């Protein structure tokens, strides 16, 4: 059946940033196709990109601004409390009424308690332009740096580990390099689930003769393609990496030239490795010492080797250490700054890279320019024409804690769902209930929305223009294929409209004002304040995206980073201690819980549970090793209750040897069995990221479940 029109755009799910074509017929998405000639996916998609975008047509899309029914003009607002439902809790409002109300409240709270009494979540799913304007609004009009997003809950560990060692946190190699890899190591990434199209290139690499080392407690699919599989005990990653470093140093397999030219503190670091023998690591991690030696030699002796990692490394109270340990390995062997050699944290959300690039973080402006650097701050103050707060803001989890302490009174949340993504959800809920005001801007009423005073309906990715930046730093176009439903508006329009109202109420005028001739004009401003993006224009990326850094319009973009050394100047070897996970199984809670993603769902499930994807994975399922299943006992399809010190959920059993003995795996997509009711909210001291992979739990048979999937 021929479509009425075909609109090329970028997939809204993961960080691969596949190029898709929305085939529109009768104002509906008829099918999704893809251009076989375009990077990064060259005609390949996964189930979500190809079949999962029908969520944009879901009947529960927000189509009108909503205001809580219990709000009476002139009266003080009730605190944020969860409404029973949208219909019971909210009434429709006009955009003017809703935005005036938001502007009034935010302005009043900023006036009374200072800007730092407001917390803002920008959005790793929104465009670069949306996020740039959002952080500019927060920083210039609310005068706070309390802005963060879900990257905090995924790659903060990687960012902290990379920043302190080399000074940059972006993925250094490219997807196009993958098929030509010589040797590569994948750890803490179930790539075939989380980055399916990247996994295709990795499999192709193995077909083409590359050697793959997998270090993962779970028997992920890539194990079938691996030359070596090191199955460490959960939480013992640092031990394995340190022991590999020990082997590389003691057998002198390192790259002297690279170490001398590009690093510092090697001697101290080498000395610090003495106790971390492979035999010691075998005790700690359960990986045979000999395998650690083989892995170290394979990695070190490679012509070029790339490291890929995901949440298994980062989402840990030692996330920064995990990442630092990997950086140490790369620096030892000089596997950095060359084709097929580098450090590659695989980014999760479609635009988590861009959201961070655009300054959606409490400590940096666009282009990772530190808030705490007076010269930088002066530059931005000059560029934007307003004074800026010198204090770093709070991170996502810290903001929730600050709400509990009454220091933050209002939240403005664009497209995020902390009530699913925060660790220790019970605690998070109690915190949110302290808020004097909360506004939500989203395409669906997610778990968090029902606490809000005002809900603003936004356009989906298919209904707006802008750019996303994928995991390999490729800035790619997003194009409107449909009109937003009802009164819904693109995020950028909403933000600019709100900014104009706030600007007036706060009496603050920025240099550029808040009238932009569309996203392209916003993007041009990004280039003016953040040089890495200056050479990327909408015209240049009309067909295929460009990888930043791209300083001028003649620059082709950057395939891999650090060819001329690392941003820090010299890479700093980072001596590490091994720390066991904070919570380990005991007699009462005898299993370790790891949480993560399924192929068929996306994060909190806000989108995917409203698409055909939900039909294939409709219920929460917990993976249990056959040996554990016999011990519990339970069988495929049984219901079990999973309890931690913080909460409990019910899920259906899938007996699978993907999970190692003693560790169960629960996906975090299901609000009715929210994995984060169980997890700890202790944070990595450096990265402020919680540990979603190590929680002690007990399992018992359950007779019934109380799942209710309510889609508001």
């Amino acid at each position, binding site marked *: *059946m021929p479509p009425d029109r075909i609109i090329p755009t970028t997939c809204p799910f993961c960080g691969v940033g596949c190029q898709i074509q929305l085939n529109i*017929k009768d104002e509906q*998405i*008829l*099918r*999704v*196709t*893809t251009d*076989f000639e375009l990077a990064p996916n*060259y*005609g*390949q*998609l*996964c*189930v979500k990109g*190809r*079949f999962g975008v*029908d969520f944009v047509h879901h009947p529960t899309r927000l189509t009108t601004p909503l205001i809580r029914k219990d709000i009476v003009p002139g009266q003080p607002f009730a605190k944020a409390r969860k409404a029973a439902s949208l219909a019971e809790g909210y009434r429709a409002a006009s955009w003017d009424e809703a935005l005036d109300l938001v502007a009034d409240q935010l302005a009043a709270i900023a006036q009374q308690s200072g800007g730092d009494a407001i917390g803002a979540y920008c959005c790793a799913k929104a465009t670069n332009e949306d996020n740039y304007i959002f952080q500019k609004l927060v920083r210039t009009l609310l005068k706070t740096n309390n802005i963060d997003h879900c990257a905090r809950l995924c790659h903060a560990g990687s960012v902290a580990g990379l920043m302190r060692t080399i000074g940059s946190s972006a993925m250094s190699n490219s997807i196009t390099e993958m098929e030509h890899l010589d040797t590569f190591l994948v750890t803490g990434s179930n790539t*075939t689930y989380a980055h*399916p199209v990247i996994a*295709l290139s990795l*499999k192709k690499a193995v*077909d083409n003769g590359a050697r793959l080392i997998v270090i993962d407690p779970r028997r992920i699919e890539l194990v079938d*393609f691996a030359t070596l599989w090191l199955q460490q005990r959960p939480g013992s990653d640092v031990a394995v990496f340190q022991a590999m470093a020990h082997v590389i140093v003691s057998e002198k397999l390192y790259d002297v030239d690279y170490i001398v030219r590009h690093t510092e503190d090697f001697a101290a670091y080498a000395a610090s490795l003495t106790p971390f023998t492979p035999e010691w690591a075998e005790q700690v991690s359960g990986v045979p010492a000999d395998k650690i030696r083989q892995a170290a030699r394979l990695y070190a002796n490679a012509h070029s080797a790339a490291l890929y990692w995901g949440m298994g490394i980062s989402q840990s109270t030692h996330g920064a250490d995990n990442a630092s340990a990997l950086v140490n390995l790369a620096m030892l062997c000089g596997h950095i700054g060359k084709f097929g050699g580098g450090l590659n944290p695989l980014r999760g959300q479609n635009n988590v890279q861009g959201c961070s690039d655009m300054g959606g973080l409490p400590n940096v402006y666009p282009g990772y320019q530190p808030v705490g650097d007076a010269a930088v701050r002066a530059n931005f103050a000059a560029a934007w024409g307003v004074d800026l707060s010198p204090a770093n803001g709070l991170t996502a989890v810290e903001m929730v804690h600050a709400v509990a302490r009454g220091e933050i009174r209002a939240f403005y949340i664009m497209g995020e769902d902390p009530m699913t993504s925060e660790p220790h959800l019970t605690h998070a809920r109690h915190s949110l209930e302290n808020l004097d005001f909360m506004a939500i801007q989203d395409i669906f009423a997610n778990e968090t929305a029902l606490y809000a005073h005002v809900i603003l309906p936004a356009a989906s990715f298919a209904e707006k223009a802008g750019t996303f930046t994928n995991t390999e730093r490729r800035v790619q176009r997003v194009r409107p294929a449909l009109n937003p439903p009802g009164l819904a508006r693109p995020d950028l329009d909403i933000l600019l409209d709100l900014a104009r109202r706030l600007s007036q109420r706060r009496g603050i005028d920025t240099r550029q004002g808040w009238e932009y001739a569309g996203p392209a004009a916003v993007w041009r401003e990004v280039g003016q304040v953040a040089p890495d993006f200056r050479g990327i224009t909408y015209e240049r990326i009309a067909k295929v995206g460009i990888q930043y850094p791209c300083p001028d319009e003649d620059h082709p973009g950057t395939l891999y980073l650090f060819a001329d050394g690392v941003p820090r100047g010299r890479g700093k070897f980072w001596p590490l201690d091994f720390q066991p996970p904070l919570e380990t199984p005991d007699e009462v809670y005898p299993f370790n819980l790891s949480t993560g993603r399924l*192929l*068929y769902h996306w994060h909190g499930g806000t989108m995917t549970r409203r698409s*055909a*994807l939900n*039909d*294939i994975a409709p219920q929460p399922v917990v993976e249990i090793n056959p040996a554990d299943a016999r011990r519990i006992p339970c069988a495929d399809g049984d219901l079990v209750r999973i309890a931690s010190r913080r909460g409990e959920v019910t899920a259906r059993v899938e007996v699978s040897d993907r999970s190692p003995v003693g560790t169960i795996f629960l996906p975090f997509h299901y609000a009715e069995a929210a994995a984060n009711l169980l997890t700890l909210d202790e944070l990595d001291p450096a990265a402020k990221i919680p540990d979603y992979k190590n929680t002690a739990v007990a399992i018992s048979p359950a007779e019934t479940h109380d799942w209710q999937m309510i889609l508001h």
Partner: protein
Amino acid sequence: MPPNEIWITIDGQALKVPPGITILEAARLAGVEIPTLCYHPSLTANAVCRLCVVEWRGSRTLVAACAGTVRPNAVILTNSRRVRTARRTILEMLAASVDLSDAPDLQALLAEYGGDPNRFGEDAARRTFDGVKADNPFYVRDYDKCVLCWRCVQVCADDVQHTYALGFNGRGFHTEIATFFDAPMPDTTCVFCGNCVGVCPTGALKGKREYLWGG
């Protein structure tokens, strides 16, 4: 002769081409269109449909343009009588065996080559199946329309996905695309990437959404 170019002749037209390119690529350089069906630029060329065969002087049989690479002084005819007979007969036999209603390109080719599938008679065996297989939320499989181009099997296997959900039943005329013991897709290793749907040239694989739409 510089080593990076060779002379060949295509339909009487002499031209210099890089060595090692396929006949199909060389023909395009010469501005000559050769029809293809199973060929897909992103996939391994298996040359199963043989619609792109050409006559290569000195070769006993016709040569598939998608997979055959040019050699110095090759003299190639892309539209000779022999070539046209082969193409027409293949198209006729195909149309007599398979439902091509969703493959307008093939219908157009059949007309262009003057093919008449009815020559084989109304009782000629057709490959028909018991209805459309709609066993998953994402796509349907309508094997009445399957020409066995292999693309879906290739993308499911080493060419792209390495999932190996799809393979073959039977052989010869009775070959079919199949799963392990004909299991419904959710019971196979399928991950529903739909890359098979994306490369199907005849509408045998189609998104469920589109199928329910009525197409």
